């Protein structure tokens, strides 16, 4: 198979009578799409060093800004030991591979479906609507991301790019991407779990505007090797459009200004807030509950916090859900859990959020 074939290729069809293994599929995909790099983008997060290669213009405009500002352009190919992600703009290169053939009932899923294939060493995820294919070879620390156009990436992919690949590699290193927000101060923070619309983003953004340390509003990286510590991965925040009049950090840049009113507005924060990359030790789970007559905090069970954290986290991630659920449960056992009744939204909302959460942290630390 020529590696410069300028057409659509379906590695899964190569085997004909003898269906190829997923390992062979991924190997073929790397043979077809991987190109050696004379430079790469490198950054370190929670002790893991990453390298990104691919179309520089697309990466610089649409992927790297959501990953933070501490990414360096480095001459030469990625060094051994780094986790290497190679991004392919199939529209520009005219090299494209199909997702694995699926002969199961999953073929009948709607266009919104995300499909996942996995074995001990290989992970493949295909987002049908966005036509984004991600493959990872875990043991060799390398991954491929194929998009139809880096320039035309959907805003939600720009907001949280390559998250499946991060999830696959990081979970093997004891780090877990959780669907939650984290705010606090240098020595202590709270993790705010909850499905979309639960209020975690508005609470996190209010804390940010009041000067609190901020790790993330929607997806954070949690290291549970010792005492749990959360790190920021994406610089984006999601805001209900009706809340935009409450104000934003002045340096935020909107990604989807023309989006429908039902979609949250997505912003990139620049520069990163305090705590974003350095991380914050987690001291409590704080389940946001919008409403109530006043802002208040009350204890709740670990099971209540787990019910807020685990289902939406598992929904966000591609595969390895049993392991992810176990980590969510571990966090719910480790940390005290509380419910935050946000009360009415007043002019002093950010200050009240900061005061209330700091009061909680004072009491439990």
């Amino acid at each position, binding site marked *: 198979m020529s590696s410069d074939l300028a057409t659509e290729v379906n590695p*899964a069809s190569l*085997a004909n009578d*003898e*269906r*190829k*293994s*997923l390992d062979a*599929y991924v190997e073929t995909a790397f043979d077809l799409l991987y190109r050696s790099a004379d430079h790469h983008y490198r950054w370190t997060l929670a002790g893991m060093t990453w390298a990104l290669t691919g179309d520089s213009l697309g990466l610089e405009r649409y992927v790297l800004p959501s990953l933070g500002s501490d990414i360096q352009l480095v001459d030469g190919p990625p060094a051994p030991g780094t986790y290497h992600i190679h991004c392919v703009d199939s529209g520009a290169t005219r090299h494209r591979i199909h997702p*694995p*053939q*699926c*002969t*199961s*009932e*999953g073929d009948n*899923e*709607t266009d*919104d*479906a*995300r*499909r*996942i*294939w*996995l*074995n001990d060493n290989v992970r493949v995820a295909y987002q049908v609507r966005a036509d984004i294919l991600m493959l990872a070879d875990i043991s060799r620390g390398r991954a491929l991301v194929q998009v139809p156009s880096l320039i035309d990436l959907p805003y939600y992919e720009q907001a949280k790019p390559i998250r499946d690949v991060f999830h696959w590699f990081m979970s093997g290193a004891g780090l877990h991407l959780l669907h939650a927000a984290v705010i606090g101060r240098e020595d202590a923070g709270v993790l705010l779990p909850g*499905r979309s619309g639960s209020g975690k983003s508005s609470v996190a953004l209010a804390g940010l505007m009041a000067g609190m340390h901020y790790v993330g509003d929607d997806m954070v990286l949690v290291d549970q090797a010792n005492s749990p510590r959360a790190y920021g991965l994406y610089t984006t925040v999601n805001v209900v459009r009706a809340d935009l009049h409450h104000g934003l950090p002045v340096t935020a840049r909107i990604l989807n200004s023309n989006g429908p009113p039902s979609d949250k507005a997505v912003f990139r924060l620049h520069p990163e807030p305090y705590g974003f990359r350095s991380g914050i030790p987690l001291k409590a789970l704080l389940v946001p509950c919008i409403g109530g007559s006043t802002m208040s905090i009350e204890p709740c*069970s*670990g*099971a*209540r916090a*787990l*019910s807020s954290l*685990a*289902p*939406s986290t*598992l*929904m966000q991630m*591609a*595969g390895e*859900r*049993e392991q992810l*659920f*176990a980590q969510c*449960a571990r966090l*719910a*056992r480790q940390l005290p859990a509380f419910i935050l009744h946000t009360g009415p939204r007043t002019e002093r909302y950010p200050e009240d959020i900061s005061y209330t959460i700091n009061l909680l942290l004072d009491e439990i630390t």
Partner: protein
Amino acid sequence: MTIKNLTYEHDHEPSSYTIDRSVVVSEVIDGEAVIINLDSGRYYSLNETGSVIWGMLLPQSMDIHGLVRKLGERYALPQDIDGILINAMEHWISEGLVVRSELTPGLPTNQAEPGTAELREFIPPQLDIYTDMQDFLLVDPIHEVDVKGHPTPHRK
């Protein structure tokens, strides 16, 4: 009260029940069970009694007799306890959380030891069902492959 003197008459096939770990993840934290069915996208909580029963099923499959025996060590059981448990198991089976399995040799019998601790009131198990994540989980079918080749539906 213990179950020592109770007599059980069953009109059902004797079987034991086990958690369907191929599609269910669960934890019991401080006596409260949190359960997610990865196939259906539904997640669940159980009241105290239900969580106790779920905790009994976590390490091993159990039959009705075994469950009654263990429950009798901490609860004052009503006369129709086996019917209550059978109904609960049927409900859990219908939600895809539990499956019937072969009777496992060596499982506890219904010969309970007389209890010494004060027994608590037995409130029938109640399963609360949450469906708000269902649509999201269902658009994310997971497939596994084996050495022979391409994807098959995710089943263990």
